[in-house]
């Protein structure tokens, strides 16, 4: 979808039609906070399958993108923590789900590298543990670092607070988490927000994600978590 200056505002149902089976999808959020619930629920409803889910965690069995996992729409998860979603554990143990666990700080740096044109990042996190196995370790000035490779996705579903029609975004509370990083790392970025303002109504000093990164705007719905987060 070509990026226009004025961003289209769509229903969540229309927006998720852009996600094809087999796509890699980044979804913002930490625990139950900062998840684009309305978009995720529409994706669950659409039944789009064979997805690679890139999210910090897999939420809960029946909350947010946890539902994508528990309903079998996901073939691979890349996350830092999946302990709160029993389906993730069960499907992984049954060999029905591929799981790549990444330390949380390395996870977000991989996304940043993907979005910002870096060939990877070097981090001391995980050195001397089983996590190091199979990864390239580089020594710099006597300290060992793991080379973490960039992560990109076909689509990012992110949660902002307010947008303007250019797609500029501001965030609220602890809902920010992974959303700004993911907004830079996907070919198609769909943002769910509380309100969509006219151009000029957001103070450029407050904008965190510039609108050039955002392709589609969706207003949040009124489900339990969408309306409360």
């Amino acid at each position: 979808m070509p990026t226009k200056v004025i961003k289209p505002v769509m229903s969540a149902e229309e927006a998720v039609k852009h996600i094809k089976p087999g796509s890699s999808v980044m979804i913002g959020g930490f625990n139950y906070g900062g998840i684009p619930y309305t978009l995720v629920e529409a994706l669950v409803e659409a039944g789009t399958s064979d997805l690679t889910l890139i999210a910090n965690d897999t939420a809960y069995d029946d909350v947010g993108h946890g539902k994508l996992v528990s309903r079998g729409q996901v073939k691979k998860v890349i996350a830092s923590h999946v302990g709160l979603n029993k389906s993730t554990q069960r499907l992984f143990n049954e060999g029905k789900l591929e799981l790549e666990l990444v330390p949380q700080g390395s996870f977000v740096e991989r996304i940043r590298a993907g979005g910002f044109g870096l060939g990877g990042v070097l981090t001391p996190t995980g050195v001397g543990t089983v996590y190091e196995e199979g990864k390239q370790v580089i020594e710099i000035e006597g300290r060992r670092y793991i080379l973490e490779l960039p992560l990109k996705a076909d689509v990012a579903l992110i949660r902002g607070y307010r947008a303007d029609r250019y797609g500029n975004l501001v965030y609220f509370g602890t809902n920010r988490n992974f959303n700004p990083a993911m907004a830079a790392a996907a070919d198609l970025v769909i943002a769910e927000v509380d309100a969509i303002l006219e151009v000029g109504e957001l103070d450029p000093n407050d904008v965190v994600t510039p609108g050039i990164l955002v392709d589609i705007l969706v207003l949040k719905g009124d489900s339990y978590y969408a309306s409360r987060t």
Partner: protein
Amino acid sequence: MLPVLSEEVVRHRIARRIAMEFEDGDVVNLGIGIPTLVSDHIPEGVRVIFQTENGVVGAGPKPPEDDLRFIGAGGRCLSVIPGGALIASDFSFGLIRGGHLDATVLGALQVDQEGNLANWWIPGKLVPGMGGAMDLVTGAKHVIVATTHTTKKGQPKLVKKCSLPLTGAKVVSLVVTEYALFRFVDGQMVLEEIAPGVTEEDLKGVTEAEYVTSSNLSIMKGCDEEQN
């Protein structure tokens, strides 16, 4: 005979003792479980800045009314103190990895005498994931472990060598249990404090790790403040 303690006494004893470690202005991340209780016991006059990895610098207590837009890493609603800041995950972990945290307080499955910590994975059982723990133990200046002395089945958690996958290698600076406080000094595990009613022999019986005893061994601080 080791004293029999209620779970409440155990949890708060550990948290109270850890809370005495901080200085005014320290930046501290608390894990879930016993570590969360540490914020209840910060001594009067000490301002500790609590950081949560999901994006708060200056986390305050649970507010009277829940606002799900402000949560801590464990999912509980929190307040942001006046003077606090809200940040994104990349910045949050930049702070963590970059050495800007004075301490992280975490639970443990095992700690060994070399200061290795295992707290993220029991192979063959759960695969919860490491979350932010590997970054925290790598970047924080002090890694403080808050743990019961043994497992529920009575197995030692302070061991010679961790058999579970490590969260971090040689990272632990302090271990506080309901029976004792051990500090790692120049790579050596040192018993510095012992709880009232616990003899050195009792302690050896439930500790697999080999440690040296400080010449200044004292009674564990804070136990005299317990209500019962």
